[in-house]
C-alpha cells in the first residue's frame, strides 16, 4: 500500500511538473514576443516616441524628471541625442542601480527595440548626435597606425595605451575597452558619457574615430597578438616590477630556503 502510493507520486514528480510549466511559459512568451517586436518596427516614428515615453516614465523619470529636465539625481537629457541613450542603456549603465561615484557597466535589461524607442523619445527632447550607422564605425580598411597615434594623443591618458582602463579621482575610473562593441566606442567618443569628455566630429573626425576603433580592434580584443606573452594586465612597468619582485625574487628565495632546509643526512633529525 505504502509502496504503491510512493510509486504513484515519485519524489521527482514535482520537479517534472515545474519544468513543464516553465517550458510552457517560455514557449508562450517566445510565441508572443516577436509579434511585439514586429509591431514596434513597423510603427511610425511618433509611435516609437510614444512607446519610448512610456518606457521612460517607468525606468528613467525618477532621476531624469518626467520631461527629461533632470533633477539632483540625474542630468537633463535635452540635447544628449539618441547616441547617448544607445550607449548608456545598450551597455547596461542606465538605468542606474544606485547613486555613486560612477555608474558601472552591467547586464543590459532592455531589448534593442526598446532601446531604440527610448532613444527616439530622448532625441525628440532636443537635437543631439544620432546613433551611428554601421559604415561609420566598421573598422574595416581603416588606418590602424594613425588610429594608434590618435588613441595615444586623445584617449590613452585615462584608458591606458592599449585600452586596459585606469583610475581617476574619488572612486571614478576609466573602464577597460576590451571587447566593447565598436558602435558603443563610437558613441562614447561622440557623446562623452558620465565624466568622459566628448570628442565631437568637429575636433575628432569620423575617419579619426574609425581609425581609433580599428587600432583597439587590433591591440585589445580576445585574439590580440601579444608576442611577449603574460601581459600582466598590460598596465606597464608597475605591475611587471611588482610581479618580478614578488614572484621572481620570492621564488628564488623559496628555492634557496628549500634547498638548505632539506637535510641530505641519512639519519633525519
Amino acid at each position: 500500500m505504502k509502496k504503491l502510493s510512493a510509486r504513484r507520486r515519485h519524489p521527482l514528480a514535482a520537479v517534472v511538473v515545474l519544468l513543464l510549466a516553465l517550458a510552457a511559459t517560455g514557449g508562450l512568451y517566445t510565441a508572443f514576443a516577436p509579434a511585439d517586436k514586429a509591431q514596434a518596427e513597423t510603427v511610425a516614428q511618433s509611435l516609437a516616441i510614444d512607446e519610448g515615453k512610456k518606457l521612460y516614465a517607468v525606468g528613467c523619470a525618477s532621476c531624469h524628471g518626467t520631461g527629461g529636465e533632470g533633477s539632483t539625481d540625474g542630468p537633463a537629457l535635452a540635447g544628449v541625442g539618441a547616441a547617448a541613450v544607445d550607449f548608456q542603456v545598450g551597455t547596461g549603465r542606465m538605468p542606474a542601480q544606485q547613486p555613486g561615484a560612477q555608474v558601472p557597466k552591467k547586464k543590459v535589461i532592455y531589448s534593442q527595440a526598446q532601446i531604440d524607442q527610448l532613444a527616439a523619445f530622448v532625441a525628440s527632447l532636443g537635437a543631439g548626435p544620432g546613433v551611428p550607422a554601421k559604415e561609420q564605425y566598421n573598422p574595416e580598411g581603416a588606418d590602424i597606425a594613425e588610429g594608434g597615434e590618435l588613441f595615444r594623443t586623445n584617449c590613452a591618458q585615462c584608458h591606458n595605451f592599449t585600452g586596459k582602463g585606469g583610475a581617476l579621482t574619488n572612486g571614478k575610473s576609466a573602464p577597460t575597452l576590451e571587447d566593447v562593441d565598436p558602435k558603443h566606442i563610437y558613441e562614447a567618443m561622440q557623446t562623452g558619457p558620465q565624466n568622459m569628455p566628448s570628442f565631437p566630429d568637429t575636433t575628432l573626425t569620423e575617419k579619426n574615430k574609425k581609425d581609433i576603433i580599428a587600432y583597439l580592434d587590433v591591440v585589445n580584443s580576445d585574439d590580440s597578438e601579444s608576442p611577449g606573452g603574460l601581459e600582466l594586465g598590460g598596465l606597464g612597468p608597475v605591475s611587471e616590477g611588482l610581479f618580478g619582485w614578488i614572484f621572481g625574487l620570492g621564488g628564488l628565495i623559496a628555492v634557496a630556503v628549500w634547498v638548505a632546509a632539506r637535510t641530505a643526512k641519512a639519519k633525519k633529525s
Partner: protein
Amino acid sequence: MSSQDIPEENLPAERAADEHAHGAVSVADEKHPFADPGLPPHEHRIQDIDERAAKRSERTVALLFTLSMLATVGFIASFVAIPADRIVYIFPLGHISGLNFALGMTLGLALFCIGAGAVHWARTLMSDEEIADERHAIAAEPEVKAQVLADFKQGAKESALGRRKLIRNTMFGALTLFPLSGIVLLRDLGPLPEDKLRHTRWSRGKLLVNVNTDEPLRPSDVAVGSLTFAKPEGLEEHDHDFQTEIAKAALLIVRLQPENIKDKRELEWSHEGIVAYSKICTHVGCPISLYEQQTHHVLCPCHQSTFDLADGARVIFGPAGHALPQLRIGVNDEGYLQALGDFDEPVGPAFWERG
C-alpha cells in the same frame, strides 16, 4: 705571509690525520667555566654509506646535465626552425610569439638543469665533512713591521726629496693644479637656459591648431564637455625642434558654461566659455589631460595632482605647487581661435629663478 692565508694544517687531508679534528674537547678551567663540547660527531649521508645510492645520485646529476644539453640543442633548433612572426595560442598566455616561447623555455630549462645538477651533486656526492678553521692573529710579526719601516726610510732617503727642494715644490704644484681640469669641464653643464623656460611659441595672433586634424579651430568646433589638444600655428611635427617646442606649448582646450567659471580672470581670458590651459603639469612636467567633464577637474597621471579648470586651474589635490598657466584667447577676423599673447608665467615645473 702567504702561508698564513692558507692554513695548511686545516685542510681536510691534514685534519683527518689530526686525530679527527672535531674531537678537540677542552676541559673547564677558571677562565672558561664551561667546557667546549667541540663539534658534534659527523653524520654520514646515505650516499656515503650505500654505494648504490651514490650511483643513483650520480645518474640523477648526469640526467640533469643531459637534459640541459638537450634543451640547448632545442634552443638552437627553435632559433633555426621557428619563424619570428609565428603566433601561437598557449593557455593561459594567449596569442604569443612561438619563437619567444620556445627560446625562453629551452634557455630556462638548460640553465635550470645546470644549476639543479650542480646543487644535487654538491649535496649528495661532494665531501660534506665539517671543518673548523681557526683565525690567525691579525697583527703582523714584530720583525715584519721593523722591515717595512726600514724599507720606507731607506726609500725616502734615496729619493732625496728633502734635499732637492725644487723637485719637491714643482711636484706639489703639478699635483695641485691637475684637478683643475676636472673642475673646468663642469662648465659644460651649462650654459644656463636664459629665458627659454619663460617663453613658448605662443604669441599674439597665433592660431590654435587641432593636433588631430592639423586644422585651425573655430569656437563652434569646441563643444561643451569636449576635450581638444592644440598646438601653435606653424609648428609642424617634422620640424627639427618640434619636441622641444611642443613640450612647452602643448595646450588643452575645454569649453565650460560661462556661468560655471568661478575665477574672474579665467572668464576674462576665455572666449565664450572656451578656456585654454597649458598641458604641462606644474609639478614635474607630465602631460596632464585626464579631464573629467562633469567635475571640470583635470588629473595628472604621474602624482595625482588635480586642478579645477572651472576655478583658474587651482590645485585642489596633490603635490603641484601652482595653478596651470592659462593662455589668453580670442577670435580673429576670420572667426578662428587665436592666442592673445604668450603665457604670462613660465609653464611646467617650478625652478629656482621662477619667482
